[in-house]
Structure formats: C-alpha cells, structure tokens
C-alpha cells in the first residue's frame, strides 16, 4: 500500500562480483527460491565490477539500512573484510557464495559459504583434457591459458587443472598464460597466443568470457580440428559449441541458479534461527563433455541463465 516503504516486506543485499552472466543466474535462483517459499523479497543488488571500494560503499549502505541478510560474492579475500565486518556488527547475517573472505575472518563474520570448490573445478577440467589428449594420442600437448587471474579463484582453478592434467599427461606444457576475462579481450589474447604458438593443441579458458573468446579465436584462425578448447561456465553459446563439438571438448560449470537457490534457502534458514552446521556448503560442480550434455543443458535453461 501507500503507507509501506519499499523494502519493508523483507529484503536481501546481494553483491555480484563482476559483470558476468553467471550472476544473472544467481539472481534468478534467489528469486525463484523466495517465490516458492511464498515471500516477496526485495533484492538490493550491486554489481561491484571487481571494485572493492564500490562493494564497500554498497555494503555500508545496506548494513545501515539493516537488510535481513547480505548474500555476496566478495571481490577480495582481504579488501572485503572491513565491509563484511561492519555488516556483521550491524547485525546483518552474511552469506558468501562463489568467493569469500580469508578463512579466519570468514569464520568470525560469515555465517555460511556456498562454494563450488575451484580446485575441484579445475581438476575436473584437467582430467577431461587429459582424457582427450590420451584418446587422441597426443603425449606432449601445448596448452595456452586465457585467464581471469585478477580474481583469486581463477588461480586456484588453474592449480587444480594443472594437478589433474600433469598427473595423467606429464609431458604437457603450458606455453602461455595471459589475461582475457571479457570476451573481446579474450579473443585478442587468444589470437595472439595462436600467433606466437601456431601449433597449439588446446586452450584452457578459466571462465565464461575466456572460453568463448578462445573458441572464436580458433574459428577465426582456422585452427578447427587442431586446437581444442576446455573451459568454464556454461552459457547458451557454450552449450551450442558443445553440441557442435568441433572445438569445445569440455566445460565445467557451477550453476548460478543452483547457487542462488542455495543462498536464498540458507538465508531464510538463518533468519528462522536455523543456522547450518557446516560452514562450507558445497555447490554442485557439473562437467559437460558430450554434445548430448550440451543439448540437455539447452533444454533445461531455455532463457539462457546459467
């Protein structure tokens, strides 16, 4: 009605770390979950675009406005601590997803952490890549990495990837590792990597933009059949590429929708006084390798939200 102010029916503060489609999935998951629980919850959202100061400003605002819960993927392990501490001290329960702050501080200020383990993420992909090379009979593959290592999880994804890969294909070599987190950057970087290493066997794209960029670069440089791509983060395009299967051979995904649902559910449990016992709540990590996998994903995600 007229008397009530916006947000008086209950609201969450939500932080998305950067401008990736993944977070649209998270939002949808949260909204779906809230709707199913019969509540109309308002989301106060910020896309921090990787900027800790932006995040801090936002968290301050929602803390002083006393939102019911803060659900966030912090921009940084350390730089996000003061903001989260403030939220905690203001009595706002904090739930991390995707990323979180440093262990010690997290234990103190954060109620729960919904995590698709990045090392596991990389490991799955490394394993899939290794299987591919073994099946193709390539014993010393050259691999180019298009990274998003300005965020810490991406470093861990690479570590997992390398661990699994070298375990099965010890002669594999990472010949380049360059940053390309948005698709346009990634295409440029991947093309240049192909220039420097025309005999490249595979790209490892650490996230959505990097993966799609690598695929486009392989197409543009006519390396289809020679260079393959292993990457992260599903999207309509990635699924299509998987169905096509000429370039993208494997993709690992942590569903944003699933994470969003878990986050909303956890938040409501916390509000109801039912705190989860485990601090880390593992989010499902999915590996897609076949055209059928891709087809299925497309059917399950008609609106393209991952």
């Amino acid at each position, binding site marked *: 009605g007229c008397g009530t*102010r*916006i*947000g*008086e029916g209950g*609201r969450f503060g939500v932080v*998305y770390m950067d401008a990736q489609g993944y977070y649209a999935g998270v939002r949808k998951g949260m909204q779906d979950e809230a709707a199913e629980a019969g509540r109309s919850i*308002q*989301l*106060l*959202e*910020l*896309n921090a*675009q*990787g*900027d*800790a*100061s*932006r995040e*801090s*400003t*936002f968290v*301050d*605002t*929602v*803390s*002083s*406005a*006393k939102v019911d819960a803060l659900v966030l993927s912090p921009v*940084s*392990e*350390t*730089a*996000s*601590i*003061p*903001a989260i501490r403030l939220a905690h001290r*203001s009595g706002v329960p904090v739930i991390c997803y995707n990323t979180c702050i440093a262990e010690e501080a997290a234990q103190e200020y954060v109620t729960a952490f919904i995590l698709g383990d990045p090392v596991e993420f990389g490991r799955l992909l490394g394993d899939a890549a290794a299987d591919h090379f073994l099946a193709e009979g390539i014993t010393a593959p050259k691999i180019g990495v298009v990274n998003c*290592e*300005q965020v*810490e999880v991406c470093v861990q994804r690479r570590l997992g990837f390398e661990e699994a890969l070298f375990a099965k294909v010890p002669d594999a070599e990472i010949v380049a590792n360059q940053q390309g987190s948005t698709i346009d950057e990634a295409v440029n970087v991947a093309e240049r990597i192909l220039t420097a290493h025309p005999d490249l066997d595979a790209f490892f794209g650490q996230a959505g933009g990097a993966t799609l960029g690598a695929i486009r670069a392989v197409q543009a440089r006519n390396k289809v059949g020679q260079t393959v791509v292993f990457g992260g983060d599903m999207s309509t395009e990635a699924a299509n590429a998987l169905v096509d299967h000429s370039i993208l051979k494997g993709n690992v995904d942590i569903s944003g929708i699933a994470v969003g649902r878990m986050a909303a559910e956890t938040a409501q449990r916390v509000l109801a006084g039912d705190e989860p016992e485990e601090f880390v709540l593992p989010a499902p990590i999915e590996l897609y390798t076949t055209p059928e996998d891709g087809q299925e994903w497309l059917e399950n995600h008609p609106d393209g939200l991952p």
Partner: protein
Amino acid sequence: MTTSSQQTQPGTAASPSASPSAGTARRRRLNEIGLLAAIVLLYVVLGSTASGFLSLDNQLGMLRDAATIGIAAWGVTLVIIAGEIDISIGPAVAFSSVLVAKGATAWGLGSWGGIALTLALGLAWGALAGWLVARFTVPSFIATLGLWSVLGGLGLYLTDALPVALPDNGLFRTLGGTVLGLPTSALVMLVLFAVFAYVARYTAYGRSIYATGGNAAAARLAGINTGRVKIALFATTGLLSAITGILLAARLGSGNGGAAAGLEFDVIAAVVIGGTLLAGGRGSLLGTLLGVAFITVIANGLVLLGVDSFFQNVVRGVIIVGAVLVNVAISNRDRAVRTV
C-alpha cells in the same frame, strides 16, 4: 567635463538600471538554491519511500561516501575554474591506496612513512602533469589521460591486482573509522572544504585561479604566474587523490589497484552539476559541495530503492545531463556576452 558627458551618455553605463551585479549574484545563487531544493526534495521522497534512508547510520554512511568524491572534487573544482581538467582521479586514488599499503608493509616505511610517501608522490605526479600543461602546453586532458593510464597500470602491476593488506594498527583504524562519532574521512572532507573555500575566496592564489581561467592572457599581463598556478593546482589534485587513496585503503584495510574505477567521472559530474563552468573562470566550492551531496544522495537512494545496479548508470547519466542543462539555461539567461 566628464560629468556632463556622462549624463548625456545613453545606454551603456547608466541604463542597465536594476543593478546587474545583484542580478548575477542572484542568478548564481539561483543555481545553488535549485540544487538545495532538489536535495531537500530527494530527502522527502526517499525518506518516505526507501526504508532505512533516514536512519542515522545511513546518513553517516552517506557522509563517508561523499568524502570519496568530495575530497578530490574540491581540487578538481579549482582545476576546472582555471580552465583545465583532471581525469586521472580514479586510478590516482587506487594507486595511492596501493602505495600506502606497500609503503607501510613491504617497503618497511611504517605507517607514517607510508602515508608520507604517498602524499609526497601524489604531489609529485600532480606537479608533473601540471608542468607538462604549463610548460609545454600539453592539453590537460591528455596529460591527465596519460596519468590515468600510467597510474592505473602501475597500481595493478605492482600488486598483480591482489589487495595489499595494511598493518592493523590504531592509526589506520582511526583513519578508516570514526572520530567523535563522525566518519574520519567525512571530517577530513569537511575540514578540507573549509580550507579550499577560504583559499578560493580569500587568498591571492585563489583569486589568481579565477583570473587564469577567466582570461589567461590578462592574468599573465597582470603579473600573475599562470604557469605556477597550474602546477600548484595539479599538484593539489594529486595530493587530494593521495589523501582519498589513504582513507580508502584504511577503510578497506588494504590497498587495491583496481579500486575507485570511474571515480573521475563522478567527481567531474559533481563539480559541473555544482555550477562550475567547464570552460573555466567561474564556479564555487559551495556549488561543488551541493553537487557532491546531490550525487551521493541519488546513488544511495537508488540502492535503497532496489534499482538494478546496471540501470543506476542509466539514471545517473540522465541526471548529469539534465542538471547541466538546467545550469546552462540559468547561466545563459544571465549572460550579457553574446555568442553571435
């Protein structure tokens, strides 16, 4: 005799009867009053629609947010009054936050040492930009675009884009926290506002800035060293960026090479909304103060109203242009100079 000839003289001196100076002052105040009215209106609307907007915490939070824009905005106001521009603020703030953190930890200078280093370097790169502008007539847009690129790159390069933790001591806790219940950064902002408002109005240096922006050739002929004025101005914005960076680092507990992205645009928008002419020669710190308040309140309100964070950019763009349109309309009516 002159007295008699003056009486016969028609249009020029005597006739613009209702003293135009009063008119000018009134019009200028009109702009500030308009802004004030807009802010009051925002308070009424947001207070009744956005829950939590009026809470003390939120008000203090807004003060702190305002400081991030405001401190640099005082300097940029003077730069723009002098007819120049500085678009390096965002990266300069981020780089400063890195410097103070690295200085206090990795480079072993201690907290005060790190702060001193950051302030000194801020002054230095600002002066460098000013020197390029004053000595070699490099357009200030380009000189500060260069800074923007160099400092932004350095901040990320030195840290690999990872945050650099600050030592957790009383000094930085105070800087990042509150003093007497007010956010420290807000206090710094207000103190600096007083200093800058005084300098602009009551010192020869301040008046030289207006003269330089209003008519640089005339200022030079009157013996004002406009080159030195410009160097001092850019050095000042460098220093203010450094201060903002230090306060930001204290607030975040770490230095971040990627922080404060796009801050330069917020700062310029606040200054221009506050009625300072982008062409130079005219503007006031009070106007900028109101501009900063306006931008801060809107940003806060949009968050509390739950507006999509991407869509906030759309709203902001429209508001900046709208506010400047109003200013232009007000000051055009007021202008006796013709533009052909």
